[in-house]
C-alpha cells in the first residue's frame, strides 16, 4: 500500500533537515516506541507497541538509510519489522522544500504487511499506518516549533 502526505513547518530547511536526518531525534516521535538503539550507520532497531482495534502487540522494527542527499534534501529509508505473527516491509521517501521561511515536508511511503494481520485487516491497516505516520510528523512539527 502506498500513501503520501505533506505538511509545512515554520522552520528553516537546514534546521528541519538536521532533525529529520538524525534518527535519535526522529525515533522519539514514533508513537508507541518502547525501546530503541541506533548504530553508527544510522541503522535503527526499535520495539514498538502497536494496537489495532482490540489487537495489541509488540513489533520489532528496524530501519536503514538507503539514500541521503543533503544537497537536494532527499532521504530514503528502508523499514522492516515483525510482530503479532505478521511482518512488514517498505520504504519511506522524504523530500524537503523551502517555502519562504517555512519548510514543506513531503513523504511517500510504500509499505507491505504480510501474515494474519495483513490478510485480516488490510484496509484497516492502511488507516492505521496513515495515522501513525501523521502522528509522527505532527510530533516532528511540534519538536521543531
Amino acid at each position, binding site marked *: 500500500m502506498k500513501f503520501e502526505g505533506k505538511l509545512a513547518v515554520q522552520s528553516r530547511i537546514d534546521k528541519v533537515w538536521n532533525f529529520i536526518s538524525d534518527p535519535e531525534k526522529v525515533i522519539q516521535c514514533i508513537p508507541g516506541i518502547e525501546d530503541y538503539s541506533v548504530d553508527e550507520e544510522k541503522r535503527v532497531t526499535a520495539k514498538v507497541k502497536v494496537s489495532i482495534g482490540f489487537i495489541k502487540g509488540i513489533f*520489532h522494527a528496524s530501519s536503514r538509510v538507503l539514500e541521503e542527499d543533503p544537497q537536494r534534501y532527499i532521504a530514503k529509508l528502508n523499514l*522492516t519489522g*515483525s510482530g503479532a505473527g505478521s*511482518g512488514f*516491509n517498505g520504504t519511506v521517501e522524504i523530500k524537503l522544500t523551502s517555502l519562504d521561511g517555512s519548510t514543506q515536508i513531503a513523504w511517500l511511503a510504500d509499505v*507491505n504487511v*504480510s*501474515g494474519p494481520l*495483513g*490478510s485480516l485487516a488490510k484496509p484497516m491497516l492502511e488507516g492505521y499506518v496513515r495515522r501513525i505516520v501523521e502522528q509522527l510528523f505532527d510530533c516532528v512539527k511540534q519538536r521543531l516549533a
Partner: protein
Amino acid sequence: MSFKYVGKPIPPQDGFLKVTGTATYTFDLELPGMLYAKLVTSTVPHARIKKIDVSRALGVPGVVRVVTGKEYPYRVGMYAGDRDLLAIDKVNWVGHPVAAVIAETLEAAEKAIDLVDVEYEELPAIFDPLEALKPDALLIHEKMEEYRHSPAFKPIPGTNIANKFTLVRGDVEKGFRESDVVLEEEFHISHVSHCYMEVQNVIAHYHLDGTVEIWTSWQNVAPVRQIMALSLGIPHNKIIVRIPYVGGGFGGKAGLGWEALVAILSKAAGHRPVKLVLSRKEQFSTAAVREGFHAFAKAGFKKDGTFNAYSVRFILDAGAYADYTVNVGRAVGYSADGCYEIPNINVESLTVYTNKIPTTALRGFGYPESHWVLEQIIDRAAKKLGIDPSEIRRKNLVKPGHSHTCTGERLREDAGDPQKVLKTLVDEIGWGKPSENPPEPWKVRAKGLSLFVKGPAQPPNAAASAILKFNEDASIDLLIATGNFGQGTVTALMQIVAEEFGLPLEKVRVDYVRDTHKSAYTWQTVGSRGLFTDGIAILKAIEDAKNQIFTVASEVLRCPKDQLELVDGEVRVKGKPWEKIPLQDIVMGYTYPNGNSIGGPVIGRGVFMSTHTTYLDPDTGQGNPTIFHTFGGTAVELELDLLTGEINILKAVEVLDLGKVINPLLVKQQTHGGLIMGTSISLYEEIKFDERGWVVNPNFTSYYLVRIKDLPREVVARYIETPQLDGPYGARGIGELTMIGVAPAIANAIYNSIGVKLDRLPMNPEYVWRALREQRPDLVEEAWKRFSKYEKIVEVTI
C-alpha cells in the same frame, strides 16, 4: 476359480482402532525425559544471514539449547541432495528454518522462538520459475556443483535448474510439417498442500552409544533411514526407524523429512529424546508442498485425427528446495504421452528453483500435471478437426503388445485393455446423449472425458521383500514394511496370505509399527506400488513357507510333496482328505509320538525385484522406467453456473483396469477418495503468495478444500480385470490414479459444451467467472437476461 478372501469386501483391518480413537500415532507418543523442539523460520524470502543472536531465547526458563545451521553443517536429501539441516548463511524462502529451540515444554520452546533475533541482508527474490530461468537471474543455489545427487538427475550448476529432463523420440519437426492441424496451448497449476490430518511430527533419540531411534509420521521406514545414513554418516543398522499409525500421507510424507534434523537436535540436547511437531501453519509454509507449474505445448494432428507430433515444455516451480521434485519433473516428462501412441515427441521438463516453499510429491507424482495438459490438447484438437473426443481417443490409444511408450518401452501384451476402459467410460456417462436441461436456465450441463495411465515412478532397482513367521497355533506374523496410512494395502495383503494358507483372516497379523530393524525391506510406499511389489514378495514368501511345510509333511505322511495341498489349515494328501496334519503340528516342527522331531519353526521369505526396468538415457529419455501401467479414465457430467462460475459435478464415472479386484470395498473407497481429492484440487485448492513471498492463506479458513456439499452427487466406479500375469492374482496398483482424470475431465466438459478454455488450476468460481466473461460474453449476457427477466409482474402498494 473361487476364493475365500481374495475379491471379498473385507473391511480395513485397522478401522476399529481408528474409529474408536485408540490407534497410536506418532503424534500421541511421549518418551520419558522428552524435550520439545520448535523451528525459528525466516520472515524474508531471500537473504543472507548476517547474525543470529540466541541469547534472549536462552533466557526463557525451560530452554535447553538453541541450535543454528552453522553448528551442524550436514547436507541432506535423497535425489537432489540440495538441503542443509538448518539454513546456513542464506535463507531461501519465507518459512525457511534458521534455528531450532529445544526446551522442556512446547510452551517454552514456542515462547523462545520469538526471542531468537536474526539479522538478514535481503537479496532480490525470484517467485516465478520463468524469471528464474532468465540468463541474468540471481542464483538461489550458489553451491549446486557440490550437491550429491542421484545419477538419474541432471542439475545444471550456474543456473536455477535443479533437474533438466529431456526426451526425444522420432522427428518432431518433421512430424509438425506432416500434420494437418497444429495447436499451441499453455497451462498452469498452482501450489497445493497435502492436507493430511496428522501434521508432520518426529521423535528422535540419539543414544549415547551412537544408536539413533526415530518415531515418525512418514510413509515408509527405509527411505528415512537411507537419507539419515547418507546425510549424517551413521551406519544403517545404528538407525532404527519406527512408524506407527499414520494420519495420511498423499506423497507428502515420502521424501525428505525432519528426522535427520531432530536426531541432531537430540544429540545437541545431551542425548535426550526430542519431539518436533509442525503446526498446520508450518504445513503451509515450512513443510514441502506440491509444486506449481507452467506448460507450453505444441501438438500436430493429421486430418483423420492421428496424433502425429507433440512437443511440450514443462517448467516446474519447485520452490527453494527440490529434493523430491526433481523426480516429479522427470515423471512429468516421461508421462507426457499419456495413453496415446505419438510417433514424434519432444519433451523438456525443467525443475526450477524459486524463493518459495519447497516442494515434493503429491498423489500422482507428475502424472496429474502431464495429463492436465495432454487430455485437454486432445479435446481441443478434436474440436478443430471436427472429430468426437471419444473417437479421437479411440483412434490414438496405445495397443498393448504392439505400441511403444514415449520412452521407447514396448507395452507388454498383458498391460491392460485401454479400449475397454474407454468404451466402459463412454457407456457409463452416456456419451453422445445430451444432458437434461438444468432447472435454472442460467446454468449449463456438460460432459467431459479424460483417460490416463500410470505406473510407479521409481528407480529401476526398487525392491521389496516379505517375511512370514508362523506362531505355535499356526497364526502368522507377516513382517512387511509397506506403510499403512489409509490406502488399505495391508488388508489386501493379509487377504492374500489367508487365502493361500486356507487360514481364517484373524490368523494373519501385520503389526501396526513398521520398523527398519524388524520389518522386511521395501524401497518405498509410493507410486501405487505396495500391493503389486509387496504382494509379489509375499506370494514368494508363502511359496517358501509352503515348501518348508510340505517337506516335513511329505516325510510324515509318506507322500511326495506335489501330492500335498493346504486346505482349511491342514496339510492333506490330494484325493485322500483323511490323510492330514493340522498346520499347528508342523509350523514349529513336527514331533513324533516318541518325542523325535523334524523340521522346525517355519519362516518364509520372498522378494520382489524388477528385472526389466532401466535408467533412462540422459539425452533422449529412452528406457524402461515402469513395472506396470494401469489404464483408467474419468468422465464427469457437471453443471456450470454461468453467472457465478460455480461448477457442480452431478456424476463422476471412474473406470480402472486394475487386473484383479482383491478387495472391492477398499478399491471403492480408494476410488471415491481419489475423486474427492481430485475435485478439491481441480476446483478449490491453491496456496497463495503475496508480493513478498508470504503464504497468505496458511489455514483451512482461507485455503479452500472441498466440502461435503461440493462432492460429486453420483459416483459410478467400474473395474476391468485384465490380469497382469506377474501381478499378485493379476492385480495392478491404483491408489494415486483415481484422481488424475478429474481436472481434465472437468475442463474438457466446459470446453466441449461452450468452448471456454480453462488453462489453470484451480478452476475456482472467480477464475471461471472471469474466463466466461472474457471468452463468451454473449453467453453470460444471455444467462443474465434469463436470470433477471421475470415473466410475472408483481405490483406493490407504495
